[in-house]
């Protein structure tokens, strides 16, 4: 843990929003209401793929209590332009069609129309009165099927990008991406051992417990207010502005507390509809998704296929590596293909790398970001194949990774050369851990895997205000999804040299602070933290000016230390230090309020690396996996609030365990989702798990004043292969298709067991 270098950083203080969140006082998305509000509901497609021949809303409009109905006709057409959205990119032409279908419905659950009524019951009744005439088309769900010639084509205009010469016919392959370093074929010739495997993964959902919710109030003068549960209220503002043609400054979005997002709340579904319903009805409109709607029609993470080929020397040195990935984008192009490709071999210093990726549309909901988008899928393939290699070489899996580990100076396949990183330190921490030094319990097997995430910087704004009594408010604009208020306040208290309890962090709406990019990419503590630190420094600069004025000296002759202004040296004169409260009390005489501001585009987000170890056993009769022990090690830069850093690591690991063992979107022959609920979409529950030991490694990021690296994304990357590798070593079968659910495992065990002699 932190070394005593700091007073506040590295301490486990109570979070500022703690009392609100343990008493039910905190207001989440569905907890906002306005007098006279209407309730909005959405009509969704029952078909996976169909032409919309007509939509008749007349009967719904006539139902007493219905105040507005909207269809795609109420949203202006959008250009074919790609804009950033969270960690992903979206095309405006596509996103308006994702929000309300136009020519076709492209997945079961695709919204077609929405109504606002005085009660929820009337709204539901009205939705059922909308008549839609469909021409049902053949559909395609599976990514491999969708890539085949002759597959039903979702978009007649979709010509594969990244292929030369450009194809002349539309297909479901939106993009091909090539990413190389050195010469893979030449490298492979030097190999003494070659291993190759193919893998699949299924679509999984972020599984945030709070469904999407919004409350919109459009006034007669054109101003719009929105309350929304989102990872980025500035993104909500931007999308509503673009999609409805409203000037950005006319829209004010206040973020509610957010009940989980994990990337899934970086895009918009309800907000533009709610605003349009509010404009048409003249009343505030509240919309909340059901859990079923969340599963069917928000953005899960893609499933896909991964093929990995590794060539190595007998001593374990990897000389050539190839990865081919095809990801489901869902109904519209835009899977996290880039990150999936770029992260695939980012943990390793390999001279010859070839990565090819395909972004493929099919009749599924359009994917959204999910914690380290794309990375767990390629890591599942790469880290599993590394385990095959380790077994064939008879090498310890940590030693194999240490032999090939990326370090400072390693050039990545996607371009950048690493600065100071902590992968070797993380591997060594695992090797030295009590867990790794102790063999698994009898009957249990051990799996190891690593993971990487770039981490993100981007745009942040912050302000710091000294109140009249000398206490401080720190204002930023990123929804606090897991304790970031605490980490921001800790950095502000450290910088200012005052008690943590004197610093109150708040999250401002879009009209009260400058632009902030989404809470995502593990960027808030790094980038918004940097903005907060800079705003405090700006405030300190002003505090020194005020002290100088009080003393009648030059501002350069004042220093700020331990929360007080002091003369820089004895030559300045004999002055008693001035505290924040003293300077605040006289602020009116020295120049007015004392504030600081900062805005930046943060560069130098330090990449993060994780290494996970799991001991488990497989019940050979039921196919159930029992996890006995789990250690997740990660280089976090500096743990600003160690408890929340551990929490990110533990939570990410468990989401990865769910992905590995049980979670999957299951479609039936009609292209409809069969498990759109928490009973059948089986996320980990408390009784599935042991404690998750978070092993925090601190290799400070040289590009942040306190050494911060993002933490949240890395921990979901290793678990898929860590679990798979342990299963392989447990039952001696290399499972290549996720999830490793009981039916799949017991079928594999049965298939591998010699049939009993006919008795």
């Amino acid at each position, binding site marked *: 843990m932190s070394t005593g270098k700091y007073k506040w950083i590295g301490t*486990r203080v*109570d*979070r500022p*929003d*703690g*009392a609100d*969140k*343990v*008493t*039910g*006082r*905190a*207001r*989440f998305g*569905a*907890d906002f209401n306005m007098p006279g509000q209407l309730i909005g509901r959405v009509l969704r497609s029952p078909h996976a793929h169909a032409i919309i021949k007509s939509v008749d809303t007349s009967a719904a409009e006539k139902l007493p209590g219905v105040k507005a109905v909207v269809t795609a006709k109420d949203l202006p057409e959008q250009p074919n332009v790609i804009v950033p959205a969270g960690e992903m990119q979206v095309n405006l032409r596509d996103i308006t069609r994702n929000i309300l279908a136009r020519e076709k419905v492209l997945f079961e659950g695709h919204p077609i129309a929405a109504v606002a009524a005085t009660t929820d019951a009337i709204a539901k009744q009205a939705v059922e009165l909308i008549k839609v005439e469909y021409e049902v088309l053949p559909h395609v769900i599976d990514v491999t099927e969708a890539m085949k010639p002759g597959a039903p084509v979702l978009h007649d205009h979709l010509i594969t990008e990244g292929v030369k010469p450009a194809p002349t016919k539309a297909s479901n392959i939106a993009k091909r991406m090539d990413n190389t370093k050195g010469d893979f074929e030449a490298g492979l010739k030097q190999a003494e051992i070659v291993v190759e495997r193919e893998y699949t993964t299924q679509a999984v959902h*972020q*599984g*945030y*417990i*709070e*469904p999407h919710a919004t409350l919109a109030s459009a006034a007669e003068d054109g101003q719009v207010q929105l309350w929304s549960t989102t990872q980025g209220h500035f993104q909500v503002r931007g999308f509503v502005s673009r999609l409805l043609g409203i000037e950005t400054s006319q829209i004010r979005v206040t973020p509610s*507390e*957010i*009940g*989980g*997002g*994990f990337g899934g709340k970086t895009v918009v579904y309800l907000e533009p509809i709610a605003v349009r319903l509010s404009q048409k009805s003249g009343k505030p409109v509240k919309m*909340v998704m*059901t*859990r079923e709607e969340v599963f069917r029609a928000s953005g899960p993470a893609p499933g896909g296929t991964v093929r990995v080929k590794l060539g190595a020397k007998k001593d374990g040195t990897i000389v050539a590596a190839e990865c081919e990935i095809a990801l489901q984008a869902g109904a519209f192009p835009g899977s996290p293909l880039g990150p999936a490709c770029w992260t695939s071999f980012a943990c390793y210093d390999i001279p010859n790398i070839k990565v090819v990726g395909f972004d493929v549309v099919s009749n599924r909901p359009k994917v959204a970001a999910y914690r380290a988008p794309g990375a767990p899928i390629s890591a599942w393939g790469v880290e599993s194949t590394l385990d095959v290699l380790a077994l064939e070489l008879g090498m310890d899996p940590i030693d194999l990774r240490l032999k090939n580990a990326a370090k400072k100076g390693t050039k990545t396949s996607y371009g950048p050369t690493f600065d100071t990183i902590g992968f070797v330190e993380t591997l060594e921490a695992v090797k030295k851990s009590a867990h790794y030094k102790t063999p698994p319990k009898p009957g249990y097997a051990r799996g190891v895997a690593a993971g990487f995430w770039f981490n993100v910087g981007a745009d942040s704004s912050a302000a710091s205000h000294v109140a009249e009594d000398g206490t401080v408010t720190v204002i930023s604009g990123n929804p606090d*999804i*897991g*304790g970031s208020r605490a980490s921001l306040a800790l950095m502000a208290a450290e910088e200012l040299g005052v008690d943590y309890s004197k610093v109150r962090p708040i999250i401002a709406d879009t009209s009260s602070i400058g632009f902030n990019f989404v809470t995502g990419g593990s960027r808030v503590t790094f980038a918004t933290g940097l903005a907060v630190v800079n705003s405090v420094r700006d405030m300190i600069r002003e505090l020194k000016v005020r002290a100088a004025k009080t003393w009648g000296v030059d501002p350069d002759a004042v220093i700020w230390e331990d929360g007080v202004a002091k003369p820089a040296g004895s030559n300045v004169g004999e002055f008693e230090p001035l505290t924040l409260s003293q300077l605040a009390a006289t602020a009116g005489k020295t120049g007015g309020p004392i504030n600081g501001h900062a805005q930046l585009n943060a560069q130098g987000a330090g990449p993060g690396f994780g290494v996970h170890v799991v001991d488990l056993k497989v019940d050979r009769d039921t196919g159930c996996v029992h996890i006995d022990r789990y250690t997740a090690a990660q280089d976090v830069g500096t743990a600003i*609030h160690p*408890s*929340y850093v*551990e*929490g*990110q690591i*533990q*939570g*990410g*690991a*468990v*989401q990865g365990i769910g992905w590995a063992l049980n979670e999957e979107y299951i479609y039936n022959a009609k292209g409809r989702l069969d498990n759109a*609920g*928490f*009973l059948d979409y089986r*996320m*980990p*529950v*408390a*009784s*599935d*798990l042991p*404690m*998750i030991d978070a092993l925090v490694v601190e290799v400070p990021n040289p590009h942040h004043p306190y050494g911060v690296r993002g933490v949240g994304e890395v921990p979901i990357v290793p678990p898929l292969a860590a679990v798979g590798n342990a299963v392989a070593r447990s039952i001696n079968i290399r499972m290549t298709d996720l999830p490793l659910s009981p039916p799949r495992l017991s079928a594999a065990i049965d298939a591998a067991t010699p049939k009993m002699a006919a008795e």
Partner: protein
Amino acid sequence: MAKMHITTTINGEPTEFLCDPQQSMLDVLRDNLGLTGSKEGCGSGDCGACSITLDGRLVCACLMLAPEAEGKKIETVEGIAKGDQLHPLQKKFVEFAALQCGICTPGVLVAAKALLEKNNNPTETEVRFWLAGNLCRCTGYDKIIRAVMDVAADMRGAAR
């Protein structure tokens, strides 16, 4: 359909409300009574975010019809703190960082309190199975389980 008039007790307060016969207790708590501490994560009894107690029994408010509250005693997350004093579980959850986003926290606290009232010496396995009906997607449960075990230990210490 005519509304039903229900007389009940919520967090110790005598309470009356009018509801539709098919309305869930969760909807009445949140929409009619303004007690939005209980959350709806699924509406099907799978996530536990709406956990309340009915005459001391842990139930999902989304699966309970509001008229069933007649003559009963209901406790919600809003009733856990007494005056300006947080319950030991509430304090420990903040101290141990047993919440990240906080959406599951009200339900987890109601469920954990119900457990400790029955059994102040639970094993880790007992805590894990008791809370298996409360989904948390942020924490991986580690810090939640530790917080509940620690409060149980404190309670036993105080009882000696």
